[in-house]
C-alpha cells in the first residue's frame, strides 16, 4: 500500500529545492518506478517519506542539449526519450544499448536515467556506460551548484553523495573522440524485462591495432558500477591480438574477484564474465 503522504508538483528547480529543504521527510519523484514499488514492498528505504515532490513538470529537467564539447541530459528525461534521441544515438550508442534493456516499454516510458543511478542499485543498467563516457553530475542546493563525476557520486549500493536538500539537475557527457568504438553487454536470467546479473561496458581507441585508450566498467557483478583503471593502464600500448585479449579478460575476472570476494556464484560468474569480456573486446576491436 502507498502510505499516507502528501504530493506536490514543482514547476521550477528552485521551488523543488525549497520544498526539499523545508521538510526532512520530503523525497523527489520523477518516474516513480523505484519509489512506488518500494512503498508496495514496504522497503525500509522509503518508510520515512511523507511528501513527494514531482519534478516532471520542470521543463529545464526534461531537455537533452548539445554543446560543442558535451551533451547535457536533464534529470527528468526518461529512458524512452533517451533511446529515441538522435543526438544520444549518434554520440553515446552504449547508453542507448543499455537503456533499451531497462525493464519494459511501460517502465522505460516512466523511469528516468538520473533516477536509475540515484537509486544506485547494483544492477542499474545505465551506470557502466555512463562510467566509460566519464559522466559528470550537476547537483543543486539552495547554497550552491556543483558538478562531480558519477564515479565519485556513487558510494555503495543504494547510497550516493546526494544530500536530502539537494537535487540532481543534469548528467553531463563529454563528447568522445570519433575513433572510439565500444559496446555494452548485459546478462540477465532471461532475455526481456530482466534484472542484470552481469553487465559490462567497454570503449576502445585503436591505433594500428595498438590500444591507445581503453575504458572498462562493470555493473551488477560488482557491488556498484565501477571503472577498472589499473586494468586500463595495463592494456594501453598493447597489441590487440587474441592472446592479449584473453590475458586482459582473465585479469578482469581476477580484479572483480578481488572486489567481491568469493561468493557462492563465483565459480559460475568468474568464467562467464571473462568469456563475456573476451567476446566484447574481440567484437569491438575487429569491427
Amino acid at each position: 500500500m502507498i502510505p499516507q503522504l502528501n504530493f506536490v508538483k514543482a514547476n521550477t528547480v528552485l521551488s523543488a529545492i525549497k520544498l526539499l529543504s523545508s521538510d526532512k521527510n520530503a523525497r523527489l519523484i520523477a518516474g516513480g518506478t523505484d519509489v512506488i514499488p518500494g512503498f508496495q514492498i514496504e522497503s525500509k528505504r522509503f518508510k520515512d517519506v511523507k511528501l513527494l515532490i514531482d519534478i516532471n513538470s520542470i521543463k529545464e529537467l526534461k531537455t537533452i542539449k548539445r554543446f560543442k564539447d558535451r551533451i547535457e541530459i536533464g534529470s527528468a528525461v526518461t529512458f524512452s526519450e533517451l533511446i529515441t534521441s538522435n543526438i544520444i544515438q549518434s554520440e553515446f550508442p552504449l547508453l542507448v544499448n543499455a537503456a533499451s534493456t531497462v525493464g519494459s516499454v511501460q517502465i522505460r516510458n516512466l523511469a528516468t536515467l538520473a533516477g536509475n543511478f540515484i537509486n544506485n542499485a547494483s544492477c542499474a543498467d545505465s551506470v557502466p556506460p555512463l562510467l566509460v563516457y566519464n559522466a559528470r553530475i550537476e547537483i543543486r542546493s539552495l547554497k550552491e551548484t556543483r558538478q562531480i563525476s558519477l564515479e565519485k557520486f556513487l558510494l555503495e549500493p543504494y547510497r550516493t553523495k546526494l544530500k536530502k536538500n539537494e537535487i540532481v539537475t543534469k548528467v553531463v557527457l563529454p563528447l568522445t573522440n570519433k575513433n572510439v568504438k565500444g559496446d555494452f553487454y548485459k546478462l540477465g536470467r532471461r532475455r526481456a524485462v530482466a534484472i542484470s546479473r552481469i553487465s559490462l561496458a567497454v570503449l576502445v581507441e585503436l591505433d594500428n591495432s595498438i590500444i591507445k585508450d581503453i575504458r572498462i566498467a562493470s555493473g551488477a557483478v560488482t557491488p556498484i558500477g565501477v571503472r577498472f583503471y589499473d586494468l586500463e593502464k595495463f592494456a594501453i600500448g598493447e597489441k590487440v591480438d587474441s592472446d592479449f585479449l584473453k590475458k586482459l579478460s582473465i585479469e578482469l575476472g581476477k580484479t572483480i574477484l578481488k572486489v567481491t570476494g568469493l561468493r557462492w556464484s563465483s565459480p559460475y560468474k568468474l568464467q562467464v564474465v571473462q568469456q563475456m569480456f573476451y567476446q566484447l573486446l574481440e567484437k569491438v576491436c575487429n569491427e
Partner: protein
Amino acid sequence: MSKIVKMKKVKIKFYLNGEEFSLVTEPNRRLIDLLREDLGLTGTKEGCAIGECGACTVIIDGKTANSCLVIAGQVDGCKIMTIEGIVTNGKLHPLQENFLKYGAIQCGFCTPGMVLSSYALLQENSHPTEDEIKEAIAGNLCRCTGYKQIIEAVRKSIR
C-alpha cells in the same frame, strides 16, 4: 514510530478516453485506483502492483505506462486512454477482433494490457517486425502462455 500524516487532497483534471474529468482525491491513491474504484472502469486489471506484470497498462499522453506506478497528482493535465477507450461507437477495435479471431485470449486478465501495448506499438510503428512486437509486449505477462496467438493477432492487425 512514524507519525500519521495529515493528507491534503489533490485536485486533478485530466482527459480520459476523450472525456474531461475533474477529481479531488487523496494524494496516495494510484491511477489504477481512480480508474477502477472512482470511475468504475474495471477493464484495467491489477496484477502485481509493482510494475512487472503489465495487467494495469494504460496509455498516458500516447505512451504506455503501468497505472499501478503512477499516483493521482501525476496525471493532472494528462490524456489517458484505457481499454474502454479503444472501442468506437460500441464497435471493437480491429486489434480486439483479431485477439478473438486468433484465440489470443484464455483467462483474459492480461488482455486489456496486451491490447493497449500492441495499440501503442502500431501507433508508433505501423509495420513492426515480430521481434518488435515481442519487445512491445515484453512488459505484459500472460500466464496462460498464449504469447504465440497474441503475436499472431498483432501481426494480422498490421495494415
